[in-house]
């Protein structure tokens, strides 16, 4: 479903990602691990069109999207829940969520269903639906961000550290939800610091270090890999 080949990206000076190759088959749950600053968010920003790569290629659903605009990429069915959330702070929670369905806004009924799904996933948001997103607590905002990404009814979802700032209970719920979403046939690509949980639910994993893929393979293998255990699982 998504093929990233030979991708290099930078912020002006030198590259931050160097010739990265990643493949995520359709319907798979791929996890990207990596220490701070290893380039996970940079990778995601590039895939979703927020950054232009200096070289390489991104294919999604059989078509090249390397130089497409974010808006076009979302319309193709790739949703990105970014690091830093990027909510619309002065809009209500509900508006944030419905705007998440911007590309599919014509199908009113579907939007309502999706909205309902978000509320079911994060019941805390239902009470807050008319409060401005900027006034929510950090964790609640994270929930809105995830919910908003889901609202576009994507074929594939990329989540940048979704568990950040969430209470343990909710973290567990979010992981369950991710699994659920994945079962529906939606591909998921996940960057996560909570490597243990992530590897449990993932099918495939990649490990980034200093902008390069240093390890990859089935998630279960990675979980058994001593190098991963030492670096990410604190064993």
């Amino acid at each position, binding site marked *: 479903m998504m093929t990233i080949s030979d991708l290099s990206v930078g912020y002006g000076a030198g590259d931050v990602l160097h010739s990265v190759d990643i493949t995520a088959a359709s319907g798979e749950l791929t996890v990207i691990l990596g220490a701070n600053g290893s380039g996970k968010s940079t990778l995601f920003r590039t895939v979703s069109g927020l950054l232009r790569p200096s070289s390489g290629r991104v294919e999604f659903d059989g078509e090249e999207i390397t130089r497409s605009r974010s808006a076009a990429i979302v319309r193709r069915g790739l949703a990105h829940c970014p690091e830093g959330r990027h909510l619309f702070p002065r809009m209500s929670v509900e508006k944030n969520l419905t705007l998440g369905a911007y590309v599919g806004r014509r199908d009113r009924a579907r939007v309502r269903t999706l909205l309902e799904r978000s509320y079911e996933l994060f019941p805390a948001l239902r009470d807050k639906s008319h409060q401005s997103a900027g006034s929510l607590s*950090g*964790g609640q905002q994270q929930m809105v961000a995830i919910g908003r990404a889901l609202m576009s009814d994507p074929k594939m979802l990329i989540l940048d550290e979704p568990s950040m700032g969430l209470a343990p209970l909710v973290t567990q719920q979010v992981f369950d939800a991710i699994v659920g979403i994945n079962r529906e046939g939606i591909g998921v690509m996940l960057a996560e*610091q909570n490597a243990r949980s992530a590897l449990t639910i993932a099918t495939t994993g990649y490990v980034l270090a200093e902008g390069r893929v240093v390890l990859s393979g089935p998630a279960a293998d990675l979980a058994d890999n001593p190098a991963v255990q030492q670096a990410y699982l604190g064993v």
Partner: protein
Amino acid sequence: MLLEVRGLGKAFGGLHAVRDVDFDVPEGCVTAIIGPNGAGKSTLFNLMAGFYRPTAGTVIFDGKDITGMQPHQTVRAGIARTFQTTHLFEGASVLDNVRAACVVRSSSNALDAVLHTPRHRRDERRSLDTSMSELEFVGVAHLRDEIASTLPQEAQKRISIAQALATEPRLLLLDEPAAGTNDEETEAFGALIREIVARGVTVCLVEHKMSMVMNLADQIVVLDHGQRIAVGSPDDIRSNPLVIEAYLGADADTTGATT
């Protein structure tokens, strides 16, 4: 007691984000505040640091009533805080970010600067020294000339701790210092916090990473829906059914995630 919170409350319109909260922060300890998302932890910090004006209750710091003080007054009094989403002066260098925080301990003013008085020079020298030593303390001195906002999250978090320390606080409020870090890095933050406490700074901590909380905290305050539902030692809290239901989850695995 370094800090005494009595009957503290904050309402936003009809919503009671914090309601009737009592607790004490003993000097030289780590007090953790935990609770579900939206429980009112950050709001509580904002109340303690003077960012919000309480709608009820009092905050006593070191025997002095600081309820309703402005942030610059509480900082001067000795309370420093970091933000939940890391917040640095964008575009400024790491050193400048920390140096800016020395303002509160300086006695020289603009006139001193214009006249280049000895007081001004002394302050300048001192603020440079303080900032460098704080940067070294948190372990990012080598990044001093980098533009802070381009650094990885973890480095930024350290810088903001250095910034808070540069105000020479007696009480440091850390809002989710370890969010978005992996286990190894979380460990490192834990170690840093221990060093801070060893320096004699009392720490108040909001965190969702139970591994860190359980390892560090001497006392834990649990909030839910703005109210204090429990307070006690890590062991008490771990087994408190109220807390498990509201926060930790019956799945003991989550707590077990502690190394």
